[in-house]
């Protein structure tokens, strides 16, 4: 039942992706199918609950199958336009793989297998998941409701206890609930599939810009980011959020440089699910919308911008309407009025700097990234090389830092929030930063030269 349910999630995701775009590579499709499918299923769950239908494995699976059938029918009706894609699916091009690629892939596979084993072996034990996300998943699976959930309504809890569960948008919690409904002992299969999806999708999107060897090396360096790899095996929402947020922006960059309209909608889908995972996802949507706005102003067409922004924000609005209608509002913690607090800004900067300069958390990325960015300066100024990727990173970081600054910390100190929450939020930037390192012109050229060196015809042997 569990395996069938998870295969259904993957097939649903695949059908959604194919309906949006036929420009995705096989690796990207492999990587994005589960995140897209489970995201859609969690939206289905909230819709069912909204309609007063009990959430059980049967109801969720039945609606998912119906949706899958609808999407497949749409694909069938458009089969003529899919002909080219179908043909390309079975074409095996000679990959430019080398010994170096094999060495890196071996290292990547070893790390992935060992981490997957850790994810699946240990049940949920980290505090945040035990008291929040995983407990909500267990309760939803048992009670079959979100709006009537005992954790949200029970007299046994203090009001601030209840708020904790509602603060977060529900993708991870409902993902866990789905897995429990299917009879799983622990919710870790969700985390394992998200982890493996990240590897494939990141490799795929990086490969669009670089060689196979560089894509493999970047994927390896990204995934062994110490703090992020450590957290990927826990049931917290940060790693899941990093998958949706970073891939959302990377597909935005892929659309921008490839100018293939369908990739923009893949980006919209991922950014929708990013804010469906954590509210802070708004920072990433903001970054993408700013750059799309710049593009729209240039070409003087605004329809795409409006639709993109509407789609990205839709889940966030939907969840807040759901909370409001079901009288589940939470205490507002954001200060909407702009203000200046030098002490608060000082703490923010000090703690941020401590994180950036600590080699134990993020490996070498905060050394490598500035060096590469500076070395690419000439290409950035002359040709705007990967400027959009840089701007996406910068804007998302600024928006999130402003968001952190505007929060009223009534439950904890800012220092603690920076040390524990902000630290984990930076996971979303790791794929973006590593992607920039690889896609920037200098490194790209070095690896292209390596490939040329390996693959150039041996003139001596010809003679």
């Amino acid at each position: 039942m569990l395996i069938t349910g998870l295969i259904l999630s993957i097939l649903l995701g695949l059908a959604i992706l194919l309906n949006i775009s036929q420009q995705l590579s096989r690796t990207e499709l492999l990587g994005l199918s589960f995140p897209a499918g489970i995201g859609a299923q969690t939206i289905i769950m909230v819709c069912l609950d909204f309609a007063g239908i009990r959430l059980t494995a049967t109801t969720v699976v039945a609606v998912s199958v119906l949706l899958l059938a609808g999407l497949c029918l749409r694909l069938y009706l458009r089969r003529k336009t899919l002909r080219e894609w179908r043909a390309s699916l079975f074409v095996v091009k000679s990959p430019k793989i080398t010994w170096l690629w094999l060495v890196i892939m071996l290292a990547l596979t070893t790390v992935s297998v060992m981490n997957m084993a850790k994810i699946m072996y240990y049940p949920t034990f980290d505090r945040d998941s035990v008291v929040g996300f995983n407990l909500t998943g267990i309760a939803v699976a048992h009670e079959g409701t979100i709006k009537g959930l005992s954790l949200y309504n029970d007299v046994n809890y203090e009001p601030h206890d209840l708020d904790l569960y509602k603060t977060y948008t529900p993708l991870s919690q409902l993902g866990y609930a789905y897995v429990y409904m299917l009879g799983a002992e622990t919710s870790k299969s969700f985390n394992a599939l998200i982890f493996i999806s990240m590897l494939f999708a990141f490799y795929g999107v990086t490969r669009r810009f670089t060689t196979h060897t560089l894509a493999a090396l970047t994927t390896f360096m990204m995934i062994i980011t110490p703090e992020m790899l450590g957290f990927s095996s826990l049931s917290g929402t940060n790693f899941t959020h990093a998958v949706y947020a970073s891939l959302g922006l990377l597909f935005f960059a892929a659309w921008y440089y490839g100018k293939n309209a369908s990739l923009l909608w893949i980006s919209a889908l991922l950014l929708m699910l990013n804010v469906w995972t954590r509210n802070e996802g708004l920072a990433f949507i903001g970054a993408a919308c700013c750059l799309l706005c710049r593009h729209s102003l240039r070409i003087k067409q605004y329809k795409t911008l409006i639709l993109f922004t509407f789609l990205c924000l839709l889940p966030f609005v939907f969840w807040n309407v759901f909370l409001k209608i079901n009288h589940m509002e939470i205490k507002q913690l954001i200060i909407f009025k702009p203000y200046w607090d030098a002490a608060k800004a000082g703490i923010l900067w000090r703690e941020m700097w401590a994180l950036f300069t600590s080699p134990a958390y993020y490996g070498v990325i905060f050394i490598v990234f500035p060096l590469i960015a500076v070395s690419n300066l000439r290409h950035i100024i002359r040709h705007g090389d990967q400027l959009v990727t840089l701007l996406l990173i910068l804007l998302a970081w600024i928006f999130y830092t402003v968001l952190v600054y505007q929060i009223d910390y009534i439950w904890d100190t800012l220092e603690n929030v920076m040390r524990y929450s902000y630290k984990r939020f930076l996971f979303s930037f790791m794929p973006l930063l590593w992607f920039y390192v690889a896609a920037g012109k200098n490194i790209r050229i070095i690896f292209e030269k390596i490939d040329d060196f390996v693959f150039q015809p041996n003139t001596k042997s010809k003679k």
Partner: protein
Amino acid sequence: MAKKTINAQQSTRRRQKSPAPKPRIENRRTEQSGVWWSRAFGVRSMAVGLAGAVLLYMGLSMNEGYKWVWTGLLKSNWKVIRTHKNATIEERYAMKVGFDYSYLNYIKKNTPEDAIILFPPHEHLSKTVDNQKLSNQIGSKKWVTHFLYPRRVLYQTEKDKNPLYNQVTHVAITAGYGYEYLEYTVNEQPPFAVFPKRKTNP
């Protein structure tokens, strides 16, 4: 015009039944792939691979974080997983949560799903008895609820403010505390246990 010419050529070929130039294409493919394989795994590729592997290893081993990833995170957990590969889910929980899990699992097994369980005040929760000690997490209602769900949990400190207090069905005994909340006397008093609050309870 060009199309017409091609069509004409094709029709002539069909009529004459001349052999298609298939073998030549096949030969070319084999030739190409042969060259490709020899380059991809040739001496140059091997030299680059070796240099890359050495550089990667040296680079990673210079950073504390990456060293921790290999030794502290992956290797040590892999060893545990290999050693205890047949461990049950309960044993795996106990590996991470320790005595807390064993205690809470015991409560779960000995109470019905609709039980409302009373825990002693927070100051009595984490005392050591017979070298056994519960962690501070036992004082967190949500943390305890995760392991006991759908049973409901409350603490003696909530006596005057929690409406569920009068509906308590079971009492959790921690570090020998909690017997005073039972409505009957227990002869044998283990330090960690769970009892129905009233004797009539199942």
